[in-house]
Each structure stands twice: as structure tokens, then as C-alpha cells.
């Protein structure tokens, strides 16, 4: 099945060390997305970068510090994203959220639900 629609994309940037109520921030945000039924959410770990704090984030093999830059990318319709943003406002203390309007094509195999 192929559906086409206009959607919003959020890209949230923060550090891997950032936490929300004891949990890693990216896991907390993904859990919230799941709870709200957001269509697509994916977390990427960068190898080096810096953000609003201007301190270089880098994941190193030589130390246990894992403060790598994290980018979370979330895609859904305008309404769904509107449901999520108040939660993000509450959770993210330091970070950057970039939004853009995107055209989406979704391919799905409706019959095979719950396989895997």
C-alpha cells in the first residue's frame, strides 16, 4: 500500500549524556513518541559535534564518557507533531529543534501486521 501526504519533520539535537528522569533523554523521547503513536522516530549518534553549549561532544573509545552528539528525527502529520511539542518543551533543557515541512510516501504491507 502506498500513501502520500504532507507531514512535519522534527530534528532534535542534544547530547547522549542528557537525561530525563534518570533515563537517557533519547530513550525518554522515543518512549513518548511511541505512547503518542507518532509514525516514525529514529535516533542517530554522531561521531563528533557541538551544540548550544559550544563544548565539543565526542564519543571516545578511550574513556567511558559517551557524550556523543545525538540527533533524533521524528516524522508525522502536523496534528500529531502538535501533540508532541508540549512534551518536548517540558523535557528538553538544552538542545536544538529544527522543523520542516516534508512530502511523505509511506509504503506498508497492511496484511502482514504483527509479523516479525
Amino acid at each position: 500500500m502506498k500513501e502520500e501526504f504532507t507531514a512535519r519533520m522534527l530534528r532534535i539535537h542534544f547530547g547522549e549524556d542528557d537525561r530525563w528522569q534518570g533515563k537517557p533523554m533519547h530513550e525518554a523521547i522515543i518512549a513518548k513518541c511511541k505512547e503518542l503513536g507518532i509514525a516514525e522516530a529514529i535516533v542517530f549518534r554522531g561521531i563528533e559535534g557541538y551544540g548550544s553549549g559550544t563544548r565539543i561532544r565526542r564519543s571516545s573509545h578511550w574513556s567511558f564518557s559517551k557524550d556523543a552528539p545525538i540527533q533524533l528525527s521524528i516524522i508525522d502529520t502536523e496534528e500529531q507533531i502538535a501533540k508532541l511539542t508540549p512534551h518536548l518543551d517540558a523535557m528538553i533543557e538544552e538542545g536544538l529543534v529544527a522543523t520542516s515541512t516534508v512530502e511523505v510516501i509511506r509504503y506498508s504491507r497492511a496484511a502482514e501486521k504483527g509479523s516479525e
Partner: protein
Amino acid sequence: MLQPGKAVKVTIYLSDGATHHGVPLYSSLLDFLFYRGVAGATVTKGIAGFGADHHMHAAHLVEISDKLPIKIEFIETREKVEAILGKLEELAGTGLIEMQETTVAKPAQVSKPKQPTIPAHLKIEGKAQMMRIYLSEEDRWKDKPLYRALVEAMRANDLAGVTVYRGILGYGAHRRMNKDNPLVSTHNRSIMLSAIDTAEKLRAFLPLVDQMVAEGLVVFSDVDIIKFAYRALDAEPSRAPASSESSGD
């Protein structure tokens, strides 16, 4: 710079064991020629030979000989050769130096990137589209991972560039929660492909995506691109399919 026409070919015959200030003589000589700006020089090692002393030098397994014959050759203009010959004779010591008239049919060309080193890159700005495809690492197309098949198909269709990202956590259209856990070997991680090209080229590629992607999400966004391309690199066959674009979105 060597020009086509008359030149001199100089050959120096040495023994491998010869040293100069503690380094092999041939390497000293090569350095000398290099810093004197000689157009090019080649050192070859013989497998057997004899010299003025009439000792046979050969490579035997039983006695590892360090006295194999060495030959250094270079071609230069007569003026240049005469200017360095004195020092060369001194350096060569007991070795033989031979000179012969030769004709340069075609001089070697200095590889192009050397000349425009500083302002070499080209900045191209313009409107383009970014196509992101979200799928699972375990999705397959025929006998290979789907993301790899897509990259190959994109390259075959001359899309400007594509990069594959592996997510550390995520879920989507058909994927359950994919978590990158180092203790569990999972091949079910989230994958995102990001390709940038003009809207027309991406749309022209879409029928292939339709065929290849059974489940997944394709996302289009408008981007302003700033592309830095090395003019000199354009002449060389590009080896890497990796994208060189940086998107402004």
C-alpha cells in the same frame, strides 16, 4: 621542465652495499637529484652483475648479498646535467656514470592538481531536494540488503550522492523498536538513506523505489545546497559514491 627534443640520459651504476653518511648511497643520490630539481629519476635493482672489481654479485638464498647491482637513471637537459655532474661524480665514488644523447618524445606531465592548489574548489549554490528513505537493516531486496541495493540503484541512475545512516534506536512504519544493544547482535536496526539531487532526478528515480521498497517511509524536503567541488577532481574518475553535498536544511 623537460621539453620534447634533445636531452641527456644519465645512468649511474652502483653496488647495493655502498653507503654515504650512513644511508644507502642510492638513496643519497636520489635525494640529491630530487632537491636539485631533476625532472625524474628511477632506481632499479639488478638480480646479478659484476663491476670493475670483477666480483660476481648475485642473489643467493644461502648468502644474503647486500652487494647487488643498483642502477639510477634520469633524463635531463644537457645544461642541467653538466651543472650537477661534478657533485654526482663525487657522490658516485667507485660507481660508473654513463651519459647518452637521447630524444624526449613526450615529457612527463606534472599531475594537474598541483597547479591550482589554493582556489581549487568550486562553490555551487542552488535549490535541490533531499530524499530520505527510512527502512530496517534487515529489509532485503533479492539477495542483498535493501539499503545497499538502493545505493547501487541510485549510483547507477546518477543521483548526485547518497549517505546511509544507521540509527541507534527507533521504530517506524513496520519496524518494532530497534535498539542497538551491544550485547545482542541485532540486524534489525533502523536505517536512513539520505540522497540529494534535483527534484526531477529524484522523481524520476521514484518508480524504482516503488518497486524495491515494500515497507518504509520516503520523505522529501526542499533544501538549498552549497556544493564544494574540486575542479581538479572532476577530471579523475570518482571512486566513492559518497555524497559531497552539504544541505542547508
